[in-house]
């Protein structure tokens, strides 16, 4: 499995390269936007772990390029993740806020790579989501957390995602945009349910 690790901080690059390699990944590093572009042209990566504050090339352009190359991106941000981040049309597959511990990042990396390999389709309220490509058939992008959450709700499991209300919120927002009648609601003593919204 090939991972592109991009961050302006060389210490972070060095340490996380070593840690990810200990987990058996093949890691290439980049410390600015141009390097990300050249590396991603040379190699076909399974995942890019990228800091939002990369210099040289605007992050939106970088995201667009990586999405077009169909490389899933795990974005590292220094603020709290907002619905606006997740609902952006060039949103990454997943977001992580600094500070985090190695196990969190490694867990997330494995989850995304696993999903992009096995995948399958997730059908809900007339919407069909391609798990491995993190997108709905008309092109709307879903994040890794949203798919995990939706999966556990559909299977009647108790979701354990951090910041669950944000993801419920963005999922409902996406359903609305896709003109689906499906809505996620919390039913007291039962938990989250996907229900049809008749209004």
């Amino acid at each position, binding site marked *: 499995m090939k991972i592109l690790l991009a961050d302006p*901080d060389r*210490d*972070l690059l060095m*340490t*996380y390269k*070593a*840690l990810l390699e*200990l987990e058996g990944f093949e890691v290439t590093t980049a410390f600015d936007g141009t390097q990300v572009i050249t590396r991603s042209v040379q190699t076909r990566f399974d995942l890019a772990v990228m800091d939002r504050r990369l210099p040289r090339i605007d992050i939106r352009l970088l995201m667009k390029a990586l999405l077009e190359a169909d490389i899933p991106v795990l974005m590292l941000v*220094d*603020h*709290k993740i*907002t*619905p*606006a981040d997740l609902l952006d049309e060039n949103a990454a597959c997943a977001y992580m*806020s*600094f*500070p*985090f*511990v*190695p*196990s969190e990042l490694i867990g997330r990396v494995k989850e995304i790579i696993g999903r992009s390999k096995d995948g399958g389709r997730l059908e809900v309220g007339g919407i069909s989501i391609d798990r491995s490509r993190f997108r709905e058939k008309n092109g709307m992008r879903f994040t890794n957390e949203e798919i995990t959450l939706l999966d556990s709700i559909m299977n009647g499991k108790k979701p354990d995602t951090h*910041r*669950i*209300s*944000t993801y*419920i*919120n*963005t999922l*409902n*927002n996406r359903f609305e945009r896709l003109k689906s009648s499906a809505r*996620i*609601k*919390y*039913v*007291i*003593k039962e*938990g*989250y349910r996907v229900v049809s919204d008749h209004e």
Partner: protein
Amino acid sequence: MNKVRKKFLLYAMLSLFALLTVMLAIINGVNYTMAAGDADRITQMLCDNHGTFDDTIGKAAKKKKTDVSASPDTPSQQYERPPEDGASRSMGPMGPDSPDMNSSLRYFTFVFNPDGNCGRITYRLSAVDEEDAKEWAKSLLDSASATGWTRGTYRYRIYTENKRQFVTVIDQGRELLPSYRILIISVCGEVFGLLISFLVLRVVSKKLFAPLEEADWKQRQFISNIESEFKLPLTVINADTELIERQNGSSDYTKSINRQVRKMTALVRDIGSLAIFKEESAVTTTVNLSSTLSYILDDRRHKFDERGIKLVISIEDDITIAGDDEAIRKMCAELADNALKYAVGSASFTLRRENDRILLIAENGAKLQSGSADQVFDRFTVLENADPHAIGLGLSYVRDIVKHHNGRVTAKVEDERFILTAAL
């Protein structure tokens, strides 16, 4: 605009308003009282002259004829000085004892005999016809005081002589006109003055508070810098320690590093949450408040059970609000945790729509003094029976969040129940 600056403006304007109002009220009050005094002196003079000045004029004319050679150039001696009261407060030709008083005074005097007959002493008033004036004078007899204002600008005096009642009414319209002008000018002047001072204060306060605002901005900037600049090093130290542990095995020292990093991480997060509402960048989406609150309460149901608190939930379905979802989740969580900390016996949560507003009511049995209800929202307020780790930020967050969503939050204690109402 800065809150402090707004307060400064408000208090400055209020004190200016009070000062101007008191000053102008004194000026106008004194002016009016003096005008009434002047009128009273004239009626007193009339009274002393048996209700007319004509006699005085006659005497003055006579005197003029006889004394013309003695003092031809002294006008003050050409009329008879009014007796006593008038003389003591003489203002010369300006006051009511002016030599031309008689010719400019508009007045009438009627006399009423004990049998009810009415006679005219003097009648020098063109605004009212005589019959009307008689009725007017008669009606004044019933009034309680011997002197006062009637029909706005007329001053009257009633006096009795040989069981006959004299009613004298003088028209002070022209004399009062300057007083009314002063009053109108005062009011206009006050409004204008306040307006000018408001504009000046606005500009001045902007200059005055600019360093303060800058300091405030720098402080906020500093806090948010701490937050973001500390995060990356913490992440790297974490990863370095992990790597060392993997390569060389964990030791007491690496564990110590981990503990310290965890402490610092928690600290940085706390600082971040303090700064959260000081910036204007909160993201707005549609949040399902019913779902959020239900989830939070259900999530803590077992904790309520453990503490023997009966949880009563009444949540109307599908209540949504435009706002910051993370903040709203935090608000619900703080309310639930607060109930967990303080509730005795039972805790109830109600969410419903009422007249276009969303009401979120958290009610729980609590051993609270009624007086302490308002101070629960103050930052770092920890009530007596709280657990020792409480830092007193919870309900202040709730207040901030509700305010941020243009809502109001109130708290009261009734029958040993603490009731918090948030109207959004």
